[in-house]
């Protein structure tokens, strides 16, 4: 009985006469080191927010990814003599991970800003959750939404560009690490931003250029050396490169290095979000 919130079922009202039972039922819920129910509630809430209106929150990214694919295919097949096959194989993994990461960023940032605007952020702050549990819930919820969108995009692209994953473990690792990275960036932006403009500015002027210019659509090693060195400082490049290695076996950097860098960036972001939640930066008065 303990641990479960009581709920009166129709036709079976709680036994009022049994005073001992009531005392037990109304007692505050006891939990050990981790409030598992709380973490899973917040995670599920994040997931639900991100995927509730699936016909535009999931279908939207699917349609735009297919459009990119179509445009590249048409441009290649009409404007040059060779085919477009190998190019589509190169672009498709980039599009999948890009769509997943974008969704993860949007998921955590948008819910935090919306909650702040509608003053329901207290529901998250008042709940008996530690800062660590909140950080985990936001990271996992965002990653889950992102991965769902990524899966939908992957299924749609499969119709046009058959992919044969070479390394499932690497694929899953980079997809998870990339979406967690973007989910945590989204959490930081959501905590910091007061207005929707700030959310959009980070997306348009920082994340979009960083992803688009680091190899979603073209081979980075065809760039001049100075640009290649600059891209080496961009963590999103390693996410895309590693994921593409998992899907097609092609990579520009060393996959192991990419995995390590992505992990470090994730840990650093996790720590930052954790500290923000613990201090209540821009969340608590």
């Amino acid at each position, binding site marked *: 009985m303990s641990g479960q919130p009581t709920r009166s079922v129709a036709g079976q009202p709680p036994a009022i006469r049994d005073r001992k039972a009531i005392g037990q039922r109304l007692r505050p819920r006891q939990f050990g080191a981790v409030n598992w129910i709380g973490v899973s509630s917040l995670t599920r809430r994040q997931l639900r927010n991100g995927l509730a209106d699936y016909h535009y929150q999931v279908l939207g990214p699917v349609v735009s990814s297919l459009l990119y694919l179509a445009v590249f295919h048409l441009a290649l097949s009409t*404007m040059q003599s060779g085919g477009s096959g190998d190019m589509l194989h190169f672009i498709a993994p980039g599009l999948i991970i890009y769509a997943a990461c974008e969704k993860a960023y949007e998921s955590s940032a948008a819910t935090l800003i919306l909650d702040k605007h509608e003053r329901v952020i207290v529901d998250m702050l008042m709940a008996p959750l530690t800062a660590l549990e909140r950080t985990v819930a936001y990271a996992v919820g965002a990653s889950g939404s992102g991965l769902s969108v990524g899966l939908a995009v992957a299924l749609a692209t499969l119709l046009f560009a058959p992919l044969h994953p070479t390394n499932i473990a690497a694929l899953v690792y980079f997809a998870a690490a990339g979406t967690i990275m973007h989910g945590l960036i989204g959490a930081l932006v959501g905590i910091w931003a007061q207005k929707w403009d700030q959310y959009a500015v980070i997306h348009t002027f920082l994340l979009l250029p960083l992803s*688009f*210019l680091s190899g979603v659509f073209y081979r980075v090693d065809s760039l001049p050396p100075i640009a290649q060195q600059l891209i080496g400082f961009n963590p999103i490049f390693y996410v895309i490169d590693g994921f593409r290695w998992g899907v097609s076996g092609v990579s520009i950097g060393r996959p192991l290095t990419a995995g390590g860098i992505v992990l470090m960036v994730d840990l650093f972001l996790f720590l930052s979000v954790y500290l923000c939640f613990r201090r209540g930066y821009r969340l608590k008065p």
Partner: protein
Amino acid sequence: MQNPSPIATTVPTSTLPQPPRPALSAASATSLGPRHYVAVNWIGLWTLYAKEVRRFLTVGTQTVLAPMVTTLLFLAIFVLALGHRVDQVGGQSYMQFLVPGLIMMAMTQNAFANTSSSLLIAKVQGNIVDLLMPPLSPVEQTIGVAGGGLTRGLVVGVATALGMWAFAPLQIAHPLLAVFFAVMACLLLSLVGMLAGIWAVKFDHMAAVTNFIITPLSFLSGTFYSTERLAPIWKTVAHLNPFFYMIDGFRYAFIDHADGSVVTGAILLGTCNLCLLLLVHRCFASGYKLKA
């Protein structure tokens, strides 16, 4: 009318600045009367237009700078990904082929975004009455709101063109034709945006229209590729898309090479604009989804 001020009894009058007494002259009587105007309420029309323009200029980072940066990103991506693989198109390099289409894409998407979001936000927030209540005729309402979208499209177009100028040499073969196609295209998308804004009830509806209609039509219009070498059936389909004529005509004005017929495009765009103007006017006149 004896109306002694209550303040005068408690405070020495010498310390207060004297308010101007309302003189019962002919001048003040006319200034307080209803304003008279003849056929067109020029002040009202200008006010509505200025409001629409200020609405996007106050968030210029989002409405002008952001599309410019995104369009430059597209240019970079396509040139880097395809530039070295693509042959010459109509005697021009791929970049020169791409630039006019990209500018046109930015203009049309922003013209649409301006009018559609203006009407939808006003409806959601309930301040659409501020547009419906003033003494503006449906014609003035249509022109005022559409003018705002047209202006946003052109401002974004100029900003994007300037941004691209830094990377790609821009040569305009027929400047007047470029202006004509830019105005026609922005007006068309402003009017479509107004129809969408009038029809939509929730932001989801607008997201659906943008994601599933406007973006696909503008992406598959021949911005990034030449329709000349498509299979015949797809070529016909591509030529049914009004976006194709906007981009093709605009590109012709830049590089003096068109895939389709520029005259057909101009006539088609003109006809579409006329029909849409009448339709939007009809919506404002009847109050479809606007008035209870």
